[in-house]
């Protein structure tokens, strides 16, 4: 690739990134972001509170992380004495409201860590919204027997 086309590509990328902040992701505030770390290569649950400061509902469609091969949006439910997990296409964050991803409810399932994640580590996740915009958020890794983000 020629240096000039490289520059153009970079410029286009920067423009896209700048544009993203003006869209859905720019109105979302993420807090209480944490990961329950399990031993070995077991999938981990990630939790976060998402607040929407805009007049329109915004939907989370998923996430990705450089630390994990795969991230999936899931929902756990317990009905009739049975616990089950289902995959979720999108989670709505109401206008001027919030969506709480917490144990026994909505969560991001992180699979196949590229290297072992230890309690205390900070893991970057890129939250994706249905309009294509993204929001970077730092998640704190907590021990298996933690009940919340510890803050």
């Amino acid at each position, binding site marked *: 690739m020629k240096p000039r086309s490289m520059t153009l590509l970079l410029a286009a990328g920067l423009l896209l990134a700048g544009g993203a902040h003006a869209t859905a992701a720019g109105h979302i505030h993420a807090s209480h972001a944490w990961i329950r770390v399990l031993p070995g290569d077991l999938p981990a649950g990630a939790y976060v509170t998402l607040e929407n400061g805009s007049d329109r509902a915004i939907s989370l469609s998923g996430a990705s992380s450089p630390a994990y091969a795969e991230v999936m949006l899931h929902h756990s439910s317990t009905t009739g004495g049975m616990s089950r997990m289902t995959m979720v296409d999108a989670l709505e964050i109401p206008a001027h409201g919030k969506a709480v991803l917490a144990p026994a409810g909505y969560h991001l399932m992180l699979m196949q860590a590229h290297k072992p994640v230890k309690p205390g580590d900070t893991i970057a996740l890129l939250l994706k919204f249905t309009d294509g915009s993204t929001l970077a958020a730092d998640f704190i890794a907590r021990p298996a*027997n933690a009940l919340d983000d510890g803050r």
Partner: protein
Amino acid sequence: MKSRSPLRPALLLLLVLGLLLGGCQRVQPLPFRLTNITGHMPTLAFTLTDDQGKTVSAADYRGKVVLLYFGYTHCPDVCPLTLAHLHVVMQRLGKLADGARILFVSVDPARDTPAVLHAYVNAFDPRAVGLTGPASDIEALVKRYRASFTREPSTGDGNYEVSHSSAIYVFDRDGNPRVLATPADSQDELVHDLHLLLDTAVAP
């Protein structure tokens, strides 16, 4: 010549029977707050492999109050939450917790080897034991307590999710079923009922 009354063995038998029955009736009613299952579920019985790779049976846990829970390690949300809650409950019991054991029975024995289970249960509580074994033995134990589980494919890459009973079955030191806790029940209720079971019986 000794007179051997045929009544003597019969009396002996009656005495033994009486002792056995007495033993069964020793299950004292206690003012539980959780769902009381005393006499409504079978006693604790199984032969499985523990997380050290050792063959164990229910008899190995006689003298301990047992909290039985069915789950699997690839469950990233509900199973760890339940075990984290049980860890807090154990901490709240203080020294008494040494008289209790959390038995985490894997309903996913294909992936849950003793080694995987060992690392898993110890990440939650030192008094937790992971149990696995042949699928047929696990199914038999699940049926025994009228629990259930189903395997559901989740992604195209061979991964699968397991739906499973969410209840925690509590047995007294003699292996008698006593209470059932569900995720909807509070830690306070479980702590209360475990106190009743741990305070009233003396460890052998």
